[in-house]
């Protein structure tokens, strides 16, 4: 309804860090001074199967934190692509974790950014950084959030855990950015 509004969904299976990814993107948007909401699937919904987080970015007031028709989807596994491809907004943008998704996006109106997120994370030393690689690809391809703000948000998200995790996830973020911009 709001022209400046962008509705993003991050989806994958439980344990792929979709909630954390949503949190980092939302915090980065906040650092960029934008309005943002984050909504995470909760309760029994999140037991098993796919998990998703939705982020709405806007320069005006955000009416609803829920996303029915995403403008952008970051899909980390095949079931998530199957679920969200049909409901994407016209001319939407899908960031696909090619390492785990063995099919092409069928809709011709969608822009597709493919990234070997899991393979790249594996090369960096930890497949659990798949989400950060995909997030970097999202940032590089859509320019919806600033790379600096994302790096700061990654630092904020991991600094309480360990310096090593900050370093790994920052490298993963940059690897994702590089994968789509080089």
């Amino acid at each position, binding site marked *: 309804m709001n022209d400046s509004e962008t509705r993003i969904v991050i989806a994958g299976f439980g344990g792929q860090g979709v909630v954390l990814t949503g949190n980092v993107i*939302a915090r980065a*948007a*906040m650092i960029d*001074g934008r309005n943002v*909401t*984050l*909504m995470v699937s909760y309760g029994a919904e999140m037991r098993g199967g796919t998990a998703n987080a939705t982020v709405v970015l806007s320069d005006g007031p955000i*009416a*609803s934190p829920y996303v029915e028709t995403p403008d952008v989807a970051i899909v980390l596994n095949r079931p998530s692509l199957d679920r969200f491809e049909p409901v994407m907004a016209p001319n939407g943008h899908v960031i696909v974790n090619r390492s785990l998704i063995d099919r092409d996006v069928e809709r011709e109106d969608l822009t597709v950014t493919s990234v070997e997120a899991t393979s790249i994370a594996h090369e960096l030393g930890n497949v659990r950084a798949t989400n950060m690689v995909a997030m970097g690809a999202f940032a590089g391809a859509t320019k919806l959030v600033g790379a600096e703000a994302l790096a700061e948000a990654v630092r904020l998200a991991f600094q309480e855990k360990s310096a090593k995790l900050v370093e790994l996830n920052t490298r993963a973020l940059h690897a994702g950015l590089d994968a789509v911009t080089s």
Partner: protein
Amino acid sequence: MKTGTEKLFMKGNEVMSEAAIRAGCRFFAGYPITPQNEVPEYMSHRMPEAGGIFVQAESELAAINMLFGASATGARCMTSSSSPGISLKQEGISYIAGAELPCVIANMQRGGPGLGNIRASQGDYFQATKGGGHGDYHLIVLAPSTCQELWTLTMNAFDYADRFRNPVMILGDGILGQMAEPVEPTPYEPVCELPDKDWILDGCKGREPRVIRSLYLRPAEALAEHNRHLHAKYDRIRHALPRAEEIAVDDARLVVSAYGMTARIAGGAVHEARRRGMKVGLIRPITVWPFPEEPFLRAAEHARQFLVCEMSEGQMIEDVRLACQYRRPVAFYGQGGGWYPTPEKIFERIAVLYEECR
């Protein structure tokens, strides 16, 4: 400048918890229930840091009765739950209202009746505003629609409770509790004058013993007198507290009304209608008890029709009809059971009704 970094970014449940602590809440008792589990979890670590007390109660019934005791000592106190748990608390809420003890109760509403589901809902409006427990009493009921407003109204809730010696309910829903958005952590400032708590129980050293009770057996007219006293207070609250936000109502032919999360979503639809040159406004009650009647009566002068949106089968609509004194038709858009509206769907409804208003 990284303007974002001074702000909090937490789920609504956590925003509310932190605001309560900043407002001086020092006793929290609660019981886990989705979608408000972040409240007891947050309180369990923040309350001791703030020098307060957190108790995970054995039931909602016990939690509200722990507040009955804590409030009697003068402590600012709070409990939270979601719909089925709020039903369990009704006994204690009635006693607290009868004994005129201040406290704050949050309801992050979910689908009902019964166990319902865990999705957001607004099916507890009647329960919150028309009674809920037994007897002739009222809660003050606040309905925030953003995390920022949740922050402010939570702080206000403690002040209103103390000012009127009355329980205050924060009527949220599962979306508000679960969503996160940036919040400016404005410092706590009392929103009204706070009377001395000269009624608390702390041992009768240097004074006559005090009794806190809701029992009025003798003389025969004592309870009627107590009810009159309560209702004189409710009249003062009706005079002092009604609050509503009005958006583009002055020239509106169609006035939409909604509270809480639904009002925020409806706001998007009203904005779209205005963008397209349609004279549509929004009245968003911030207090749902006392209900802000005046804006509706005023709007009924020029509006041809009202549209009420709720995440229920229609509860607040009854108050809107009363507030506009049935002068204009009041249409409804909503559904119960864990459904939520989108701005697009509300706009579609507005567009249809607006044709009738031309």
